[in-house]
């Protein structure tokens, strides 16, 4: 019945019918958020074919990188992951999600993220890593490199980066806490690049390095840490660097986010009014 209705409407409107060519549809779709794309897969078979195509996924991914809003991912004691808008001064809650893999819901620990992909680890195990894409709710359990024996050594930190030669992502793990006698460094991902941060363990300073196309570059020096370096990097994880150079830290034990403002040389704890509601 409904089909007939559609046909009559098409017949009436047929004279001003616009035929949108496939390449135009393609460019429009690459600019849609993932949620809309998942819904529009059911528009028709041709639309589904475009959206499900690998080439489309890649172009969409690059497009989103260029346009996307930066979100802060915060883990809550309830097992929910909250996504907050980093471009909003109040860091408003955009959405929340449970980790799709049930057995890891309570013990998943965020290691780092890059281009919207999140590397998660079972915090009770040393060798179970999962790569998660919250936009599509898809995940993949990573097989560890057979030469790496992580049973005895707990990795201190992980970095995730995109390798344009391979057109794929790489996970980098470091296991040592101390380098030299008194330097400690931790790995993460910043601005889509691999990043290291740390310093001399008893100093109240922190160096942040980032690996760009032409090698390692010192991104920032912070001189006035609230604690000595070794204590600071043990409890705070460096999560994100904004375009203005503000650095976001997050406490390992689900504390509130802390932002470092390089111009004022100040650490500010962000209080999130709706933080208690979602726990």
């Amino acid at each position, binding site marked *: 019945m409904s089909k007939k209705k559609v046909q009559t409407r098409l017949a009436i409107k047929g004279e*001003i019918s616009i035929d949108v060519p496939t390449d*135009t549809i393609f*460019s*429009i779709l690459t*600019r849609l958020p993932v949620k*809309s794309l*998942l819904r529009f897969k*059911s528009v*028709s*078979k041709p639309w589904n074919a475009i959206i499900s195509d690998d080439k489309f996924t890649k172009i969409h991914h690059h497009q989103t990188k260029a346009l996307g809003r930066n979100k802060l991912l915060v883990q809550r004691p309830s097992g929910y992951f909250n996504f907050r808008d980093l471009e909003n001064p109040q860091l408003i809650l955009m959405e929340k999600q449970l980790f799709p893999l049930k057995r890891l819901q309570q013990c998943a620990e965020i290691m780092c993220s890059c281009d919207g992909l999140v590397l998660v680890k079972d915090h009770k195990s040393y060798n179970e890593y999962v790569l998660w894409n919250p936009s599509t709710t898809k995940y993949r359990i990573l097989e560890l490199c057979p030469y790496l024996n992580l049973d005895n050594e707990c990795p201190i930190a992980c970095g995730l980066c995109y390798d344009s030669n391979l057109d794929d992502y790489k996970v980098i793990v470091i296991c040592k806490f101390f380098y030299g006698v008194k330097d400690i460094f931790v790995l993460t991902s910043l601005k889509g690049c691999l990043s290291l941060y740390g310093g001399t363990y008893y100093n109240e300073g922190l160096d942040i390095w980032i690996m760009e196309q032409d090698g390692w570059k010192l991104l920032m020096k912070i001189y006035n840490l609230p604690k000595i370096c070794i204590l600071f990097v043990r409890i705070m994880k460096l999560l994100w660097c904004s375009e203005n150079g503000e650095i976001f830290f997050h406490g390992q034990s689900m504390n509130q986010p802390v932002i470092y403002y390089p111009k004022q040389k100040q650490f500010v704890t962000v209080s999130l009014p709706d933080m208690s509601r979602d726990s």
Partner: protein
Amino acid sequence: MASSTTGEKKILTLKGGDNEEFILEESLVLQSELLKNMVKEERVSSIPLPSIKSKTLVKIIEYLKKHAELTPSNKEEFKNFEKEFVNVVLEELLDITVAVNYLKINGLLEFCCQAVADRIKDKSVEAVRKIFRIESDFTPEEESEFRKETPEAFEGDLDDTTN
């Protein structure tokens, strides 16, 4: 080489779908890759564009003129113009997008595609089908399968309107 910059300006005629004629400076249409090639290779002075409605052509020419006047000092003004430019009913916006795609005006095409995407991102599947005049070729079973697979994509207030 650049001796004729102040010389007489070449004039070109564009013919819209309803045979309405638009006379404009040739330099303006060079923003369109399609027309640029036609002008350069075939040295034509009149180009028929039967697939483009005159109303759409008027809009596009308006854009070409504004874009040609763009300087670093009136950037803000141009941005406002762009915003107003796509502030039309969705059907008209799609007409413009399709024509711009045909004419290959790259900057404007990207802008139009983004505008269409912004307008349809919260629409329901049914609304999108109406807008793009698509008849579903899925069975009701297949359709409910999509809903089961990604229920979160169908949640929330979806917009059923087509404009």
